[in-house]
């Protein structure tokens, strides 16, 4: 695979991760467990959407077909979205959202500190800017994991179940394909296989501090890099794309 195609694929995956998770988090707006949490969760959603915009814009440049951030964000078919499966899972209760968020934040953090050193200047610049926010997301989702894990009996049971349920979607974060191999060889991004054990250690430590058990590594879902999604994705896109599909070619 040539470098340009690999980079385009790679950027879309990163952008889709942030866009879809930001989209899911934004559903909490106005419905959070307290006002302070509404504000904090919107902050994370805003940051992630901001990262996706930079990444889509750069992806459009790399592709060279004149596509804008919105063309890429709104006008692909489901199979062309490459976000990790974990980002498209339903929000569930607050514990489900926190478990999903912590596992993703921990991954995203380890990924972006490596991307800061990317041989691609634009990727490095985007990562350098984003990492400050991702560090904050991570700190916040660790704090909530601790609060819920080591809070009440009820919260402990709920967050443990949430981690158990979401666990089978974590393997998908580390699957690599041909694009990744080019990206690694070109020094654009890290080898996810090298990140995985570090991620696992960090997660284990956080869960232990939260008095939670790390779930067993059993069978794992996969498929996001081929655009094979969960049933949830189509519904996300129906909302996300509603205006762009109903009124094609308009300025908003």
């Amino acid at each position, binding site marked *: 695979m040539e470098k340009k195609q690999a980079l385009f694929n790679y950027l879309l995956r990163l952008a889709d991760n942030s866009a879809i998770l930001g989209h899911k988090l934004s559903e909490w707006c106005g419905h959070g467990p307290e006002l302070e949490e509404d504000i904090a969760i919107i902050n994370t959603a805003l940051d992630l959407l901001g990262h996706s915009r930079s990444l*889509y814009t750069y992806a459009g440049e790399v592709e060279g077909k004149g596509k804008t951030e919105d063309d890429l*964000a709104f006008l692909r078919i489901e199979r062309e979205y490459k976000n990790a499966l974990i980002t498209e899972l339903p929000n569930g209760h607050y514990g489900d959202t926190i478990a999903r968020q912590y596992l993703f934040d921990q991954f995203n953090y380890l990924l972006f500190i490596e991307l800061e050193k990317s041989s691609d200047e634009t990727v490095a610049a985007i990562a350098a800017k984003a990492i400050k926010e991702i560090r904050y997301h991570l700190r916040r989702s660790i704090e909530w994991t601790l609060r819920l894990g080591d809070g009440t009996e009820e919260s402990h049971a709920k967050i443990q179940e949430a981690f158990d349920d979401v666990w089978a979607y974590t393997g998908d974060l580390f699957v690599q394909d041909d694009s990744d191999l080019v990206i690694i060889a070109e020094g654009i991004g890290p080898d996810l296989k090298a990140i995985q054990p570090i991620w696992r250690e960090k997660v284990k430590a956080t869960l232990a501090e939260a008095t939670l058990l790390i779930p067993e590594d059993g069978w794992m879902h996969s498929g996001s890099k081929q655009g094979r999604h969960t049933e949830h994705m189509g519904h996300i896109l129906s909302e996300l794309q509603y205006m762009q599909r109903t009124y094609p070619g308009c300025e908003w």
Partner: protein
Amino acid sequence: MSEHELQAIFDRKIENEVKIEPKDWMPDAYRKNVLRQMSQHAHSEIVGMLPEGNWITRAPSLRRKVALLAKIQDEAGHGLYLYSAAETLGTDRERIVLDLLEGKAKYSSIFNYPALTWADIGAVGWLVDGAAIVNQIMLQKTSYGPYSRAMIRICKEESFHQRQGYEILLTLCRGTEEQKAMAQDALNRFWWPSLMMFGPSDKDSPHSAQSMAWKVKRMGNDELRQKFIDQTVKQADFLGLTLPDPDLKWNEEKGQYDWGQIDWEEFYNVIKGNGPCNKERLAARQKAYDNGAWVRDAATAYAKKRAERKNKEAA
């Protein structure tokens, strides 16, 4: 000091435009009046997040999605700030929020109307935030210190919201026929409810006279409403949209617009709970409160455990 003397000091402060501060003596009725207004205002910020929130996941572009989300986040911030300011009157936030959920406290009736199209997001920003600003500029001079300061802080963001809403409509009005029709439809639906935001005519408003005497309010409902209409007509013209009021006409003599009749029956109906979304709005707040209970409890329990652990370490 006798109550008589305290009352005299209070009256003198009101007279001389000295702000009343939380630790100052104030008549019970004044405290209640200000608390009622501030909590109503805070609830409006929070319930107001819901109709706009209805469009976050369907916003037509990333730029618009981010702007809408940030706007709603501002409203949450306003709510938080106003709840804190209201707490200075001696009632805690939990109680104030419960009053809303138990139907004892009101919020602005405008938020019982649905946001049906993307253009509604523009109309809400332009008209609803616009009407709120007219009210809030007046409230910057309110006699209760914390409320006045809250308004000064919040007004800047509200102006930004209004411009953002207007700009959404401007984009639609310069777009396709369909987009322009969407904008006109939103204006048709939101115009009259926006005028109702200022409340009943002063002669029919139960709290108006006393609020004015205490300088909690500095202008009457009718005067504020007129001000809003006069400034909005030009803006509608610039958009090329028609305000849905056949009686709207410039009155040279008065130097202001004449305009038609508000359907007060609709207003009172919505206040009573018979609006398009009253049930949904309160149910959404109740659900967030109920579903969040175990999360709040966990946070409290964890904070307590952590504090205990720290104490042990220190000992």
